């Protein structure tokens, strides 16, 4: 007689930073850590959006793996032993933050998002008090063609939250990615001025999910742009409930 199939395991146990924790199959390392009040840094991740895995700040060490893994995208497994805050990880995260500062022209003091910027906060959290990499000073422009919003590539860190919220939540698919490598840029439609976009609904979600001053409301002066990111998880939950 064939052996009866056992029901799939409902919970699994693992270790995060020397703490024994339980998790549900399918959860990511980042989720499980957060359930246990261990906050792993990150910039591209945002509750309510799909996983991107590009900023590399949430990398963690998993014992038995020879590579660092992005905790936002890696699902937990039984017996997994995770370290989220080793000196090595801290050092790597610092350089990654420095890379973001060095890549484009983040002049915090004159940025409208000064004080409301996740990149700034992350720098403080990770102890980045200066950037030891050479600043790259790229000549990048900004797009003020939209009536209400402005896209300033100088401040963009390519987290692609705007691209994801535009496609996944608003369904407009206005925001996209153009170019590649160091020349990669957020684009509108087929790389046209934002103001000429036929698809943009001017909903402003992209502005509010943007972690920096790359997407802002017009008419704000330095340090005046206040972002309200909390709307997104509620929106997602409500939509799922409706479904």
């Amino acid at each position, binding site marked *: 007689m064939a052996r009866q199939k056992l029901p799939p395991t409902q919970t699994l146990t693992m270790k995060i930073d020397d703490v024994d924790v339980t998790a549900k199959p399918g959860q990511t390392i980042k989720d499980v850590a957060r359930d246990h009040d261990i906050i792993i840094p990150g910039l591209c991740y945002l509750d309510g959006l799909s996983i991107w895995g590009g900023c590399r700040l949430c990398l963690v060490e998993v014992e038995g793996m020879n590579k660092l893994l992005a905790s936002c995208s890696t699902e937990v497994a039984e017996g997994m032993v995770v370290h989220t805050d080793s000196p090595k990880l801290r050092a790597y995260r610092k350089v990654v933050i420095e890379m973001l*500062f060095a890549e484009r*022209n*983040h*002049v*915090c*003091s*004159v*940025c409208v998002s*000064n*004080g409301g*910027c996740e990149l*700034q906060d992350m*720098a*403080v959290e990770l*102890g980045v*008090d*200066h*950037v*030891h990499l*050479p*600043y790259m*000073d*790229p*000549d*990048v422009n900004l797009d003020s063609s939209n009536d209400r919003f402005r896209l300033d590539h100088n401040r963009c860190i390519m987290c692609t939250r705007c691209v994801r919220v535009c496609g996944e939540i608003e369904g407009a698919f206005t925001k996209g990615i153009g170019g590649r490598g160091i020349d990669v840029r957020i684009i509108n439609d087929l790389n046209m001025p934002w103001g000429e976009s036929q698809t943009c609904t001017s909903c402003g979600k992209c502005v509010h999910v943007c972690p920096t001053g790359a997407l802002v409301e017009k008419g704000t002066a330095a*340090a005046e742009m206040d972002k309200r990111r909390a709307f997104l998880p509620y929106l997602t939950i409500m939509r799922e409930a409706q479904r």
Partner: protein
Amino acid sequence: MSDKKKPVTIATVWLDGCSGCHMSFLDLDERLVEIAPLIEMVYSPVVDSKEIPKGTDVGIIEGAISNEDDRAKALKMRAACGFLISLGDCAVTGNVPSMRNVFDQKECFDRSYHENAQLQPMDPTVCVPPLLDKVLPVHQVVDVDLYVPGCPPPADAIYYVLSELLAGRQPDPLLLTRFGK
């Protein structure tokens, strides 16, 4: 308390910046009185001395390195001071002065001395130190021992940094300030 401690000697320079960091220093207000007996300002825009004395304990640099004069002063400060502090965003990141880095020098000169000139548009040639190609943060030119970002760093942060250093402890300026603060 008969054998009074020798006061800590401090030199400060103002390179390419708005002097706001020095202003913020003066914003220590009455706390200046508290600190004054412990320190001696041996060189600074706010005191009248012509040379940075060799063997100065602490050097504080405000402003970015934008021209040959800035560079020479930074090198002098590094040579003269035992402990060098990069004070404020211009010194730490290049900040507003470095916004010219995306333009070439000619564009900057044309804009400043021709397009915006009301009288006798001409490039300055005498008594002006030559500009560097790129505005650099201080640590790209000389080694820096402590970074105090902020635009300007709040007086509280400066007070904290100085009092910790005077007490012989290593301060963590990010507790009170950050880029752009």
